[in-house]
């Protein structure tokens, strides 16, 4: 079941909370690559444009008492023809909007996604702007098309977290997700979603789940 959360619990084991994170950005800027690096610590030089990616989860440990689990949604290609469903950003607690620092137009696209998020998503969604493919510029500074200071100034003005990243070398990838985790409202992550009360809370629709949901057997 999708964590509409934030779902969480606190107790002897410390705090644990689950948050929905959505990825946005122009095609080929490295969205899936950043996630793959973050989740599986892998990189792939020739990766295909995402059609079928669905969903990954990854946990960040902030300190010995605090664990944040990200439920990461990829666009599944629905943004390709401007047909992303509002359900995608619905109840997202955080978003990573990616551009490619070697492609100036990808920042414009990122800005338009950010506008869309501010219009459609949770009022207090945490948005991080990631300027990806930093390794390319380290190798050849002429390739840079977006000056760091420009993007940084924009991010500051729009109230976003900002990192230049490289999925290829891992540069700032962990930092990006950790910074998001730190900004999330962990305190609100009450225990409400874990011990769901079917009378008022979310329902588990699976047939085998019914037994635990209090209603008992067919009483007809």
């Amino acid at each position, binding site marked *: 079941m999708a964590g509409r959360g934030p779902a969480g619990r606190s107790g002897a084991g410390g705090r644990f909370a689950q948050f929905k994170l959505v990825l946005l950005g122009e095609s080929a800027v490295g969205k899936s690559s950043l996630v793959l690096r973050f989740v599986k610590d892998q990189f792939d030089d020739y990766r295909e444009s995402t059609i079928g*990616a669905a969903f990954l989860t990854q946990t960040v440990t902030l300190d010995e008492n605090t664990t944040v689990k990200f439920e990461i949604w990829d666009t599944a290609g629905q943004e390709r023809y401007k047909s992303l469903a509002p359900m995608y950003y619905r109840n997202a607690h955080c978003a990573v909007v990616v551009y490619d620092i070697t492609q100036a137009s990808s920042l414009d696209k990122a800005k338009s996604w950010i506008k869309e998020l501010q219009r459609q998503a949770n009022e207090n969604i945490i948005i991080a702007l990631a300027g990806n493919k930093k390794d390319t510029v380290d190798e050849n500074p002429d390739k840079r098309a977006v000056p760091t200071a420009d993007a940084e100034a924009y991010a500051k003005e729009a109230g976003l977290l900002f990192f230049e990243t490289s999925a290829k070398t891992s540069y700032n990838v962990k930092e990006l997700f950790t910074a998001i985790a730190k900004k999330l409202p962990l305190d609100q992550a009450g225990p409400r979603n874990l011990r769901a009360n079917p009378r*008022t809370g979310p329902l588990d629709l699976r047939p085998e789940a019914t037994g635990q949901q209090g*209603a008992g057997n067919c009483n007809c």
Partner: protein
Amino acid sequence: MEEIAPEYDVVVLGTGLTECVLSGVLSVKGKKVLHIDRNDHYGGESASLNMEALYRKYGNIQKGEEPWKKYGRVNDWNVDLVPKLLMANGELTNILVSTDVTRYLEFRQIAGSFVQQGSGARATIAKVPSSASEALSSPLMGLFEKRRAKKFLEWVGSFDQGNPSTHQGLSINACTMKEVYDKFGLEATTRDFIGHSMALYQSDEYINTPGQAVETIERIRLYANSMARYGKSPYIYPLYGLGELPQGFARLSAIYGGTYMLNTSVDEVITDQSTGKVTGIKATMVERGNEDQSMKFETKTTMILGDPSYFPGKTRISGYLLKCICILNHPIDKTNDSDSVQLIIPQSQVGRKHDIYIAMVSAAHNVCPKGYYIAIVSTIAESSANHHLELQPGLDRLGRIEERFMGPPIPLYEPLEDGKKDSIFISKSYDATSHFETTTDDVRDIYRRATGEELVVEGLREGVQVAEE
């Protein structure tokens, strides 16, 4: 803008629930699907609208006014266009679970299921008794009738079509429901709430139709089993409104490679002159506010699925639905302040041929801000004028209404042909029933017509992997 592939296995037109379930299932089965909608949003006739869109759709606006502003953030509203709920044990629930679309959605119970007895101010509104024990405490029946109803419901629970010893000596496959009711000596008012609020028949036609007893019993069982599932009512409902359902199935389709294009109008359906079968489409994707950026394209396909609005010449009207969407700032009287209800007014109680339905949801389902309630009153049209009068007994139940949205009667379309001739398979409009069982019947029917196979959703995703990332 990226190029469209030169060929798709299936082109789907319209992103209503029926179409989205089909494109989700077909994509999982490995078909290459192109899914198009002329609107800028998902859902078609089964969408949920925000407050501004609702006002604009129904035209309740004076020039220069922005009446939605008094209702807070427009996006806090998700108002359904179809007044339906899911049966907890129904087929749509089964499809949602089998396809894992439940991962994208969260469901809550509908807090109560009620039926009206009598009419006007003195009408009784009571919980629909769904079990033998509830029958015994229901105010809908007198003492002796309660016992008869208890017996009847116990029998329904143990009924087995394949076991004649459970048939009460009736030739169950041929008899009418009247004969069954007679056997248990049930009174007319009891038959009324059983047939209309449990079996959910909208008229009394079912009673005297020979051979319809088994279907009626199955419907009562579906109600009772759905009720037993979570306890408060047989109905469940997705947070943020029914419009989430088509979006969930569209995502499923996209995950399995389906291509989605909103804002796209179909310019031409191309058919082969000699075979009469569809071979492709021409369409235009419009960029809002940037119309000269429109993208015209043509692609081949061997099959089109679509809702009736895309095929005006290929459908007929089978009836008209009347519907009034009402915004309230209080729950409905005599429903224990339930935050969500289904209330059925059986036709006989108010001198009609068809029942009046009220479906109400509220902030408990994230469809509106706290303190508001959205009630949809609906029925099948019986007259050709004064339609609001037909809905009046339902509107009367609502008390003070802040705002009402009522358009002209809604035509219910169905396809003229089964689609085998031209490979164009058209769905039916969302009908007047209170749930999605007829919608999933239509999904199955279209699937069968289009592929020649029965749709089996159980285990659908097992062994089918999305592309390795």
